[in-house]
């Protein structure tokens, strides 16, 4: 059984305090299965979740709440070669992935 991570919701509180998420176009590097993405995506204009591991991204796509599509989308890529044009995003989140 999967563990329960951060039921105290410290992580989303900190995310909201530190990042200018309101209506922002965000790229999340190391999005994995979207565990963290769902905790802030509703505040943003859009989120592009990037991860090199296809299986984890598939989990994220399968779990994506219907009201988030297509504003939350996922791409298999490495941080060293992002498939986006210059200046596409307002902000970037390195999620447990530096």
């Amino acid at each position, binding site marked *: 059984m999967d*563990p329960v991570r951060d039921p105290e919701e410290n992580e989303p509180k900190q995310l909201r305090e530190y990042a200018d998420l309101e209506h922002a176009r965000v*790229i999340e590097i190391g999005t994995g299965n979207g565990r963290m993405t769902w905790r802030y995506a509703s505040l943003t204009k859009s989120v592009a979740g990037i991860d090199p591991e296809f299986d984890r991204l598939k989990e994220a796509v399968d779990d994506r709440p219907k009201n988030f599509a297509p504003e939350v989308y996922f791409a298999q890529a490495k941080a060293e070669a992002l498939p986006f044009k210059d*200046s596409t995003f307002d902000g970037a989140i390195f999620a447990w992935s530096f």
Partner: protein
Amino acid sequence: MHALEEVRRVVQKDGWLLDIRPMASKPPLELAFGDEIQFAGEIDDSAWVLDEELVNDALEIVFARGDFLKERVGRFKLSTYWDTLDEFASWADENWDDVLIPENTLENATKIMEQDERKFKIRVTYTMLIGRYRKS
């Protein structure tokens, strides 16, 4: 380093970069029952120290170059809970290649659970780093 350059490219002028990651901090393994917490021992994550130093060094280089400005850095606690010690041990085995659970930590946890019949949850609490940097 190249990842930071690439992120800088795709973020607009004055855009932000949020860095959120666990710090190597010998996190405590505890047994939790409601508000009652019993310490069983530490987890050995010292293998992460070198990686952490490399990341911090790479960030210092981009700050020194003026690619990003460090605006704010803080810390917070993030806890993860398992229902049983077996579930925790099995999860750790599958997910932590380079983190060691010292034998006495597991022994202490087992001893506490044998002496107290309440249904404790297993809790590991990491100190997290959170930093906001601004593209300059």
